[in-house]
């Protein structure tokens, strides 16, 4: 009997995880793609995120007190992406890693191709510091509200609001600068490289 209860509970958990997976596969993939900027890595990241989520699903449900689990999922992806960059920085690129650079441009990039404004915005997003870029991806690609983003990033609601405000302000400046640059010198800037930024104490971080 106890076994039956346990099995029913397991079946229910699996069904609920399947719902979570179906509801958020696109979110996790979109986040991963915009975070790592590569099709293969985004697939790996998405796969690892859901495998890890499956392992800890029961505990996450218990601790969420009924709150949505999307921020938890995105936080897993965020941590895995950080690990990916950390591991890559420790070893030289292997032939397999190099192959990730050969992938065809994604349809989204094809979509913005020819639309200078959107291209400039995407370039600008890539140049933002990691935390600001992530906040914008969560807000605009995933449609998360401040509270969800705060949970995903492990910050307070207030700090998240400031973070997003500053991210947009910095992006405005970057895009404005790009508009003023002649095309030739704009092309020389390292797209995708994150700029370091000076943190303003006690504001975005708490």
């Amino acid at each position, binding site marked *: 009997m106890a076994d039956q209860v346990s099995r029913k509970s397991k079946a229910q958990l699996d069904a609920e995880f399947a719902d979570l997976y179906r509801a958020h596969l696109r979110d996790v993939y979109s986040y991963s793609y915009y975070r790592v900027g590569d099709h293969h890595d985004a697939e790996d990241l998405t796969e690892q995120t859901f495998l890890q989520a*499956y392992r800890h699903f029961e505990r996450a449900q218990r601790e969420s007190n009924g709150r949505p689990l999307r921020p938890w999922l995105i936080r897993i992806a965020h941590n895995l992406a950080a690990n990916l960059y950390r591991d890559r920085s420790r070893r030289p690129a292997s032939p397999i890693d190099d192959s990730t650079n050969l992938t065809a441009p994604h349809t989204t990039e094809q979509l913005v191709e020819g639309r200078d404004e959107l291209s400039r915005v995407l370039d600008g997003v890539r140049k933002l510091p990691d935390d600001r870029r992530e906040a914008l991806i969560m807000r605009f690609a995933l449609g998360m509200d401040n509270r969800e983003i705060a949970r995903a990033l492990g910050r307070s609601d207030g700090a998240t609001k400031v973070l997003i405000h500053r991210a947009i302000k910095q992006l405005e400046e970057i895009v404005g600068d790009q508009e003023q640059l002649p095309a030739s010198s704009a092309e020389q800037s390292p797209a995708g490289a994150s700029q370091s930024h000076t943190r303003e104490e006690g504001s975005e971080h708490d």
Partner: protein
Amino acid sequence: MTEAASSLEGLLREALAPIEPPAALAERLESTLTSITEMAADELESWELSAMRDPRNWVRPAAAVVAGSAAGSALLLLRARRRAHEQAGGLDALRDAAERALRDLSRETRKLLDER
């Protein structure tokens, strides 16, 4: 909010449009999750912790853990092989792919064993 910021937010929504995951990814991920659920859960879930006091009982759950990990890692190996072929790198690339897959298998197994 300024007009410029508002217009920038509109552009951001367009530039960061959600991306549909490739069908192959969904297929592979569902298959992995199904395999892990079916192959390992039956063995692990019904296992009483008390039975684990006897080392003679360690073999079955350990095998189930490895089976569950193998399901995920087999897919990782397949993907690594696919990449290796795309790269047309020959033996070196295949060796790297196998090493990566073994590392993945070992990591997954370690995690599962730690959690059980």
